[in-house]
């Protein structure tokens, strides 16, 4: 900008401000009068501009610092005299009693009233001071600005707040005592809180306002957040008092001995204290008071609460007190991410209840085996009824566990907020009792397999797909808990084979569904053999029909043929006891078949071996059935025909009687010689043909239930049945049922052999890959490889390693640490 000649610029008129040094006292006198008027709430006659201008002139006259000092002095005097007098005047003697507890009701009421009066006065004094100082600061803003920017002094507002702190709050209430106004304030507020905690109603907003004061005052002139009086003096006292209160409250609640009450009160206290922080005290204390509650009330007592006799978690679980359990859970979760006492209690109860279920299953077994032994010692066949009861016990066992599971699932979902920690605790407890074996005798695998067997045979009749699905899923859930899955597999295979061969399955769809569920749950390897059983069944069907076709083409169509349905089973995939002809290590000769049947057998063998060279067929007569047409010559000359569905052995026996003249008999020994049916099977078959009341095709002499070698059998022409087709089952031979002790031992023996083989296979697999490995590492790897199928016994692994070393598959490479090498 060019500076052309111009009028000289006027300086602001000096003297307009009229401030000269000797005017300071005059101005101050006027100012102080005005300021006092502000304090006495007499400001509406005052002109802001006038006061402002006076202070402005003083500051402009370089007397700002002095003015600032004078104002502080004025405030100090005002607080010392007027405000202090007002506040201390409201302190009644009852407030000075150092009573901690609300003992006498009258005294408490008196003290509360006195306290409220005092707090109201203090609150009023504080709010007045704030309001007046805001006005004074506003009106002296010019001074304030200059003082804080040029002289780095705190705002007069801040300075006067500090004056309030020192000259009102921290001033002794009387010259002769050290008790300060603040002390009375603190004890009064804590007293009020105590009252409220014991159920009285107090003036919350009043206390809140007094807390505002403590939040608005600072220890330092720089007013750091952390130096609020509320935080430096009041909060510690409040927390200490709360700590004491909740320690006592915890003891009191435990004494009442009711866990539900404890939880209810604790939960209420929690929300109550949070609310108190918001409504009555300061949000600053929210987390700290929660910590006090968590530590003093909950953490210290939760274990005792959980275990309270008669009301604790055990009782809650037994009575499905979902709400109570939820409270316990919520409280536990606050103080301990592991919720240890709760988890332990839940686990303990699950195992207890589980063992009860185990025990009741075993009890029914014991009673049945006792009953089974009664009729004749040394007799292998248990009576039919108790056997069923045993199976029923097994199924009940599964049902009971499922019910227990459902109960805890419900609790877990609704009370424990689907908590992870509790879920795994519950799972491990179920697993614990399910796999718990008394004297190495866990029947869970067998029971579970029987459960499936029962359902697949009968249980699912008339059920919808969805229902079946749920049923199977329940079973699968239990399977999850079973550690020795190989054991289950063995039982399942056995039971499945019977279902398949005897066509006892209600639905093949359900069977397949079951397999795929197991596959999902346990893996491919587990179901491989089961699936191949199904495959054998379908191949056999094709085989049967192609054989029929072959026969029709190759032979005389007029000739009456024996129809043959055949199942060719791959020997390794099916249960051993079905496949083996050996019983008790004796080689059993095949039974002598009737001519016509034998020719069919040979014809099929020819057909089959012609198709599959190099295979060996071995016939399992014990597993087959036959349909025969029987003609009964009544005494009155009438002829009655029935179609009989019998086992293969029964068919052989019955055909013998074709060659026996009417009315003549055969003895047991004769029958045995002519058929070569094993004793065991023969007895059972004869029982069903001659003893069972509805299927008595043969008559036995004498008429007893037992079959003795000397018994005579004769064809019963008087056989009566309301049905055209009669099914004659074999006594206890085909039904899947709980094994007796001997069978179990055998199963276990087989199992242990199979496991040994699996362990060896695993060791060799691992070592082949790793070449050398330390003992402990090898153990770990074997355990992890096999864990899906069963939990291998460590000693067994050691023995297998020894055995592999003996057989020179492995060698010891080093002793410390023991290390093995793979011998190629």
């Amino acid at each position: 900008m060019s500076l052309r000649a111009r009028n000289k610029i006027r300086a602001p008129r000096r003297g307009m401000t009229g401030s000269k040094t000797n005017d300071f006292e005059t101005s101050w006198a006027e100012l102080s009068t005005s300021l006092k008027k502000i304090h006495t709430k007499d400001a509406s006659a005052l002109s802001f501009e006038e006061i402002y201008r006076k202070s402005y002139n003083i500051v402009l006259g370089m007397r700002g610092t002095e003015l600032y000092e004078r104002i502080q002095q004025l405030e100090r005097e005002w607080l010392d005299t007027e405000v202090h007098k007002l506040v201390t005047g409201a302190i009644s003697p009852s407030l000075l009693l150092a009573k901690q507890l609300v003992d006498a009701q009258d005294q408490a009421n008196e003290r509360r009233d006195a306290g409220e009066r005092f707090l109201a006065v203090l609150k009023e004094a504080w709010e007045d001071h704030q309001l007046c100082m805001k006005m004074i600061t506003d009106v002296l803003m010019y001074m304030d600005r200059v003082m804080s920017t040029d002289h780095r002094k705190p705002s007069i507002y801040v300075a006067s707040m500090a004056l309030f702190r020192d000259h009102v709050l921290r001033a002794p209430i009387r010259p002769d005592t050290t008790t300060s106004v603040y002390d009375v304030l603190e004890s009064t507020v804590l007293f009020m809180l105590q009252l409220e905690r014991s159920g009285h109603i107090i003036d919350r907003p009043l206390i809140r306002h007094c807390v505002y004061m403590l939040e608005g005052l600072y220890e330092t002139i720089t007013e750091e957040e952390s130096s609020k009086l509320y935080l430096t003096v009041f909060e510690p006292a409040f927390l200490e008092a709360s700590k004491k209160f909740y320690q006592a409250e915890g003891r009191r609640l435990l004494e009442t001995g009711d866990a539900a009450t404890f939880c209810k009160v604790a939960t209420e206290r929690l929300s109550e204290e949070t609310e108190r922080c918001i409504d009555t005290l300061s949000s600053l204390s929210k987390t700290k008071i929660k910590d006090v509650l968590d530590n003093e009330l909950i953490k210290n007592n939760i274990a005792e609460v959980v275990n309270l006799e008669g009301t604790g978690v055990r009782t809650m679980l037994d009575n499905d007190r979902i709400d109570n359990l939820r409270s316990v859970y919520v409280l536990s979760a606050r103080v301990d991410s592991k919720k240890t006492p709760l988890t332990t209690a839940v686990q303990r109860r699950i195992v207890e209840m589980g063992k009860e279920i185990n025990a009741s299953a075993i009890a029914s077994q014991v009673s049945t085996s006792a009953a089974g032994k009664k009729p004749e010692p040394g007799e292998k066949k248990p009576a039919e009824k108790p056997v069923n009861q045993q199976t029923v016990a097994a199924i009940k066992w599964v049902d009971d566990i499922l019910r227990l599971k459902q109960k805890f699932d419900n609790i877990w979902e609704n009370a424990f907020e689907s908590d992870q920690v509790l879920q795994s605790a519950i799972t491990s407890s179920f697993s614990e009792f399910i796999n718990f074996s008394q004297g190495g005798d866990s029947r869970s695998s067998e029971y579970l397999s029987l459960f499936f067997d029962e359902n697949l045979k009968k249980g699912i009749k008339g059920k919808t797909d969805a229902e079946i699905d749920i049923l199977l899923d329940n079973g699968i859930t239990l399977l999850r808990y079973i550690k020795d899955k190989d054991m289950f597999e063995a039982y399942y295979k056995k039971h499945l084979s019977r279902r398949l061969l005897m066509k006892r399955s209600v639905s093949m769809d359900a069977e397949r569904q079951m397999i795929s569920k197991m596959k999902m749950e346990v893996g491919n390897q587990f179901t491989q053999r089961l699936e191949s059983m199904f495959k054998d069944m379908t191949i056999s069907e094709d085989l049967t029909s192609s054989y029929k076709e072959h026969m029709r083409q190759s032979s005389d169509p007029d000739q009456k043929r024996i129809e043959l349905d055949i199942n060719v089973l791959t020997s390794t995939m099916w249960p051993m006891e079905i496949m083996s002809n050996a019983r008790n290590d004796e080689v059993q000769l095949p039974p002598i078949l009737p001519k016509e049947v034998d020719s069919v057998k040979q014809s099929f063998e020819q057909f089959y071996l012609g198709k599959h060279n190099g295979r060996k067929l071995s016939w399992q007569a014990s597993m087959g059935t036959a349909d025969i047409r029987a003609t009964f010559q009544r005494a009155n000359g009438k002829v009655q025909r029935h179609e009989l569905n019998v086992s293969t052995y029964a068919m052989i026996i019955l055909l013998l009687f074709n060659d026996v003249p009417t009315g003549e008999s055969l003895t047991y020994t004769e029958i045995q010689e002519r058929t070569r049916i094993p004793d065991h099977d023969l007895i059972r078959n004869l029982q069903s043909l001659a003893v069972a009341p509805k299927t008595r095709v043969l008559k036995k002499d004498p008429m007893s239930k037992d079959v003795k070698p000397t018994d005579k059998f004769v064809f019963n022409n008087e056989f009566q049945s309301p049905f055209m087709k009669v099914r004659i089952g074999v006594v206890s031979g085909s039904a899947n049922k709980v094994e007796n002790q001997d069978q179990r031992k055998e199963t276990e023996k087989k199992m242990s052999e199979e496991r040994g083989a699996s362990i060896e296979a695993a060791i060799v697999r691992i070592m082949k890959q790793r070449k050398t490995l330390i003992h402990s590492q090898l153990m770990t790897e074997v355990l992890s490889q096999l864990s899906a199928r069963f939990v291998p016994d460590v000693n067994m692994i050691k023995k297998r390693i020894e055995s592999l070393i003996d057989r020179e598959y492995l060698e010891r490479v080093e002793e410390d640490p023991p290390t093995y090498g793979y011998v190629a």
Partner: protein
Amino acid sequence: MIITHLSPARLVPLPYFHPIPSLSFAPSTTYLFIGTSPPPTPPHTMSASDPSSSSQSEYVTLVSGDGFEFVIPRSTACVSGTIRRMLEPSSRFSESVTGRCVLENISGIVLEKVCEYFCYNEKNKNQTYVPDMDIPPELCLELLMAADYLDA
């Protein structure tokens, strides 16, 4: 009067309006109306003893030491920290009750410029580019003093 460049502002000269040269002789009232809101009730119709009407009033009166009155919107006047506190409803000083601020040590001619600045400040609120406001050099020192006094 040289306030025409406050372009969006609608300046309504009143019959009492006096040009600068006559200032020293006839103190008067100047109404500055900004925006499209209707003119307020003139101050003299308001009852000074009725604080509610003044605290609700959108307009306040600034009075110079030599008696010139300027009626401007309250929000505009509050550009000045001093006037804002003066009018603070909670403070209960006489100015907040009457809505009338007598600024003893500011002359009419300076106060007029101050009012112009208030409008200028309002208008350019939150603008990234602000055109210069014309300040006559001969006024600049006095205006500086006034600015300091008014915290503007």
